[in-house]
C-alpha cells in the first residue's frame, strides 16, 4: 500500500509494501489510497481512511463476519482512487502472464469481497460500472482457466480521467494478482538515435523494450519463486499508452460525486459552482475533483458565476432555434468556449492536428443525419454532409493558429487532399484561399489601410480571414481523396518570399548601372529585361535551349548577398501580396 499524489503515482506497487496509516496532515494534503495487495487484504482495508479525492464507503466483510471500524471512528474506511496520468489518452492492456491460479485462494472469500468491491466500483466508476465489472469478470475467468495466446489480453480504452488505470489496480488487487505496469518509456526517435549514435547509446525500438520488460517480469517472478506463495500469484500486466475508449463520465454523475465530496469535506460550495465544474470538466472526473479542490481553498472567493448566464442563453439558443447553422454544427453538449475558468480545462490541440482536421475533411455519412423538414434546404450543389468536428472556428481557437500560418499551410497542402479528378474542387478551394488572402493582405499591407482603423478591427478581420480560408477548404473540397498518410509540407511560399527578397536586394544596385548611372531604373524592368539580356551576353548558348530554362532561372543561387546595407530597407511587407492563386 502506498500513498501518493496524483502527479507522482507510482508504477507497479511493490508486492510487499507495508501498510501505512495516514496521519491527519497527510490526509488533508490529499493522497490516494490503493487497495492492499495479495490475498490477505481483509485486515488492510480496515486502515483505509478517508482521502480527499474520491470517497467510497466500503463495508468490510471477511468471511461473512462484519468488522467494526477501527478506533471507534465514525467514518467508515474509504477508498481513494486516482488514475495515473499519462497523457490525454490513456490506454491499458491487461495481460496475464502466469498460468496458474493460487490453489490456496479461498473462492468464497473472494466472491464475498467482490461483492464488496462492487459497491465501491459503483461509486467510483459511475459511468463505467458495467464495463468495470465486465473487465473484472473477464479477469477472473482468465485466472481460473488460463488460456494460451491472445485470449489472455483485454484492451481497455477511454478518455483520460475516467478511471481506467484505477479500475485495473482495484480489480487486480481484489483478485490478488500481481500488477506490473508497463511504463511506456520515452520513445527514441530514429533521428534522435542517429544524432546520439556517437555517444554509444544503442537504439532500442519500443517493441524490443517491451519484450525485455516481459522477460524481466518472468525472471523476477522466478527469482521470487523461493517465496512459495508469491509464485502462485497471477500477474496482471498493465500497458499504458496504446493508441485505441471508457465513455466519458456523464455530467450528472460528476455532479453527484462532487456533491458527495462536498458533503464529506463539509465544504460549502454553491450548487452553481458544482454545476459549472461538472460542465466544464468534459467528463474528466479527475480534473473535476481537482477543480473542486481548488474551489475549496478559502482564498478563492470570487467565482465567475456571471458566466453561467450567457451559457444558459447559449443553451436556449441551441434548443430554441435549430436553424442557427453555427450552433447546430458545433454539436450538442459541447462546452461553450466562451467560458474559461482560471483552472479550467481548456482543450488545446496542436496546429498540425487542426490542419489535419481541415485537410482530411471528415464528414458524417449521408444517412447518418436527416435534415429537419423545416430547415431551409440548399441546392444539392451547395449541400455538404455535417462535419465530424467542432465548428472550424472553435478548432482554430483551440489550435491558436495565426491566420497567416494556417492559410499558408492550407494553401501549400490542400491540393494533396483533393482527389485527382476533382479539378473544380481544387479551383473552389483555391479561390476561397485567395479571398482570405486578400482579406489578410489588406491587414498586413498598409497600402489598403485606413488610418482610422483600429487594431481591433484588424483582429476581427484576421479571424474572418482564417474562417473563410478554413471553411472554404472544407466546403470546396467536396471530393476529398481517399484518406491515406500525408506529410504536411512547410509552405514553399515562405522560402520563395525569402528568395525573392534576396534577389531584390541584389538587383537594387543593378538599377543604377543602367541609364549610364544618371538615373534609376525600375526593379521590374531590371528583372524582366536587363537581366535576361545580360545573361545572353555572357552565355552565348544556343537560342533554342528550351530545356535549360528552368535551370537557368536560378540566377541567384550561387551568389550570396554581401550587401548588408540594403538589407534593412527591404522589409517583408512588400512581398506579402505576391501570392498567386491559379
Amino acid at each position: 500500500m502506498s500513498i501518493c499524489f496524483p502527479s507522482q503515482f507510482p508504477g507497479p506497487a511493490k508486492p510487499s509494501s507495508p501498510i501505512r496509516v495516514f496521519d491527519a496532515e497527510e490526509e488533508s494534503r490529499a493522497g490516494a489510497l490503493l487497495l492492499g495487495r495479495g490475498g490477505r487484504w481483509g485486515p488492510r482495508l480496515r486502515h483505509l481512511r478517508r482521502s480527499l479525492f474520491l470517497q467510497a464507503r466500503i463495508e468490510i466483510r471477511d468471511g461473512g463476519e462484519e468488522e467494526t471500524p477501527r478506533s471507534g471512528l465514525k467514518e467508515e474506511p474509504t477508498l481513494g482512487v486516482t488514475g495515473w496520468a499519462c497523457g490525454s489518452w490513456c490506454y491499458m492492456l491487461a495481460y496475464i502472464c502466469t498460468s496458474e491460479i493460487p490453489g490456496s485462494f479461498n473462492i468464497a472469500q473472494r466472491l464475498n469481497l467482490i461483492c464488496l468491491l462492487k459497491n465501491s466500483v459503483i461509486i467510483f466508476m459511475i459511468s463505467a460500472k458495467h464495463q468495470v465489472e465486465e473487465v473484472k469478470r473477464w479477469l477472473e475467468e482468465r485466472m481460473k482457466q488460463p488460456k494460451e495466446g491472445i485470449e489472455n489480453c483485454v484492451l481497455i480504452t477511454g478518455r483520460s480521467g475516467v478511471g481506467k488505470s484505477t479500475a485495473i489496480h482495484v480489480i487486480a488487487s481484489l483478485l490478488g494478482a500481481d500488477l506490473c505496469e508497463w511504463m511506456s518509456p520515452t520513445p527514441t526517435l530514429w533521428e534522435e538515435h542517429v544524432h546520439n549514435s556517437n555517444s554509444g547509446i544503442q537504439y532500442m525500438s519500443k517493441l524490443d523494450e517491451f519484450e525485455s520488460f516481459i522477460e524481466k517480469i518472468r525472471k523476477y517472478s522466478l527469482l521470487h519463486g523461493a517465496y512459495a506463495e508469491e509464485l502462485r500469484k497471477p500477474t496482471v500486466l498493465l500497458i499504458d499508452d496504446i493508441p485505441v475508449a471508457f465513455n466519458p463520465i456523464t455530467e450528472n454523475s460528476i455532479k453527484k460525486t462532487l456533491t458527495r465530496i462536498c458533503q464529506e469535506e463539509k465544504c460549502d460550495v454553491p450548487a452553481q459552482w458544482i454545476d459549472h465544474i461538472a460542465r466544464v470538466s468534459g467528463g474528466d472526473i479527475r480534473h473535476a475533483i481537482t477543480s473542486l479542490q481548488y474551489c475549496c481553498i478559502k482564498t478563492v472567493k470570487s467565482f465567475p458565476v456571471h458566466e453561467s448566464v450567457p451559457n444558459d442563453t447559449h443553451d436556449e439558443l441551441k434548443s430554441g432555434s435549430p436553424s442557427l447553422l453555427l450552433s447546430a454544427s458545433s454539436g450538442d453538449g459541447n462546452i461553450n468556449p466562451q467560458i474559461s475558468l482560471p483552472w479550467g480545462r481548456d482543450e488545446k490541440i496542436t496546429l498540425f492536428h487542426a490542419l489535419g482536421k481541415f485537410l482530411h475533411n471528415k464528414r458524417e455519412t449521408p444517412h447518418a443525419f436527416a435534415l429537419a423538414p423545416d430547415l431551409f434546404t440548399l441546392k444539392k450543389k451547395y449541400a455538404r454532409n455535417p462535419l465530424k468536428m467542432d465548428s472550424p472556428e472553435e478548432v482554430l481557437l483551440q489550435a491558436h493558429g495565426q491566420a497567416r500560418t494556417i492559410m499558408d499551410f492550407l494553401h501549400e497542402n490542400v491540393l494533396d487532399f483533393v482527389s485527382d479528378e476533382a479539378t473544380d474542387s481544387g479551383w473552389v478551394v483555391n479561390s476561397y484561399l485567395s479571398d482570405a488572402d486578400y482579406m489578410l493582405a489588406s491587414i498586413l499591407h498598409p497600402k489598403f489601410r485606413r488610418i482610422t482603423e483600429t487594431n481591433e478591427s484588424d483582429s476581427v478581420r484576421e479571424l474572418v480571414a482564417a474562417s473563410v480560408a478554413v471553411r472554404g477548404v472544407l466546403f470546396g473540397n467536396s471530393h476529398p481523396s481517399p484518406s491515406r498518410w500525408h506529410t504536411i509540407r512547410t509552405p514553399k511560399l515562405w522560402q520563395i518570399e525569402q528568395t525573392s527578397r534576396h534577389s531584390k536586394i541584389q538587383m537594387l544596385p543593378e538599377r543604377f548601372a543602367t541609364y549610364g548611372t544618371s538615373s534609376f531604373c525600375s526593379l521590374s524592368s531590371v528583372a524582366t529585361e536587363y537581366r535576361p539580356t545580360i545573361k545572353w551576353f555572357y552565355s552565348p548558348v544556343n537560342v533554342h535551349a528550351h530545356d535549360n530554362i528552368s535551370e537557368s532561372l536560378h540566377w541567384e543561387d550561387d551568389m550570396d548577398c554581401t550587401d548588408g546595407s540594403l538589407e534593412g530597407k527591404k522589409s517583408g511587407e512588400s512581398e506579402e501580396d505576391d501570392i498567386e492563386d491559379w
Partner: protein
Amino acid sequence: MLWVDKYRPRALDKIIAHEEIAQNLKKLVSEHDCPHLLFYGPTGSGKKTLVMALLKQMFGPGVEKVKLENKMWKIDAGTRMIELELTTLSSTHHVEMNPSDAGFQDRHIVQEIIKEMARNRPVDTKGKKGFKVLVLNEVDKLSREGQHSLRRTMEKYSASCRLILCCNSSSKVTEAVRSRCLNIRVNAPTEEQIIKVLEFIGKKENLQLPPGFTARIAAQSNRNLRRAILSFETCRVQQYPFTVNQALPPLDWEQYVSEIASDIMKEQSPKRLFSVRGKIYELLGNCIPPEIILKKLLSELLKKLDSELKHEVCHWAAYYCRTIQ
C-alpha cells in the same frame, strides 16, 4: 555600356520617338520654370529619357553629375523615431528617388525629404531664389497615405520645388495628385518609330542590316523600345553579320511562362495545379512582378484557348490582377 544607354538621347532636340512631346516640353521650360509634371505610360516608352532630357534643358549639363547617396533618415513620427534608409541620386539641381522602396513608411519619406529640400533652396547667380526638382519614380506604387502626403507637400512647397512624377499607370495615382500636375502621356512607340531608332543605332554602329530584320525585332518587342534595343544588341553579340532568318533571343522568363501555359492546357488536375504553382513560385523568386506574369500567362493562354473560354479566363485574370495588388 549597353546600347540602350549609349544611344539614349540626352537632349530634347535629339529625341526620335516622341518628338512632339519633346518639343512641347522644350517650350514649357523655356522660361526656366514649369508646373509639376506627371509622366505616365507603359514601360520602355521613354518616360525617363524625356525626364532626363528635360532636366538637362532646364539646368544644363550640371544635372548629369549625380552622386549616389544612401542616406539614413531619422524621422520623428510623434510617438517614436523612425529610421529609414533610402537611396537617392542627386545633383545640385535635382534629387531622384524611389519612394516606394521605403515600403509602408513611404509617406514619411515624401514629407521629410521634400521638407529638407525646401530648406536648402539653391540660390542662383542673380541672387534669385531658384527651385529644385524632385523626381519620384514609381508613384503608382506609393501607398494611399504616401500619395496623400505627397499632395500636401506639393502645395506647401510649390514655391521651392517642382515634382516630376513617373509611373506606369495613372489610374493608380490618386485624383488629387493628378489634378495638381501637368499630365503627360507617353505612348508606347509605334513599330515604325522603333524601326527608326534601331536603324539609327545600326547606322551609328556601322552594322549591315538585312531587310526586314529591324521590323522583326520591333514586332517582337511588344512596342517596348528598351526591349527592342536590348534584343537588337543581343542579336549583335550572338551572331554578326546578321542573317535574314536569325532567331531572336527570347526572354527566359517569358519562355517559362509559355511553358506554364502549355502545362495548363495539357492537363487540368489538382496535381498539375500544384506543379504549375511551383513554377510560378520560381518566377516570383526571381522577382518577376506577379502582375507581369499574370499578363503574360493570360496572353499565352488566349493563344490556345477555345473562344468561349476566353471571356471566362480574362475575367479571372482581371480579378486576380486586382487582388494581388
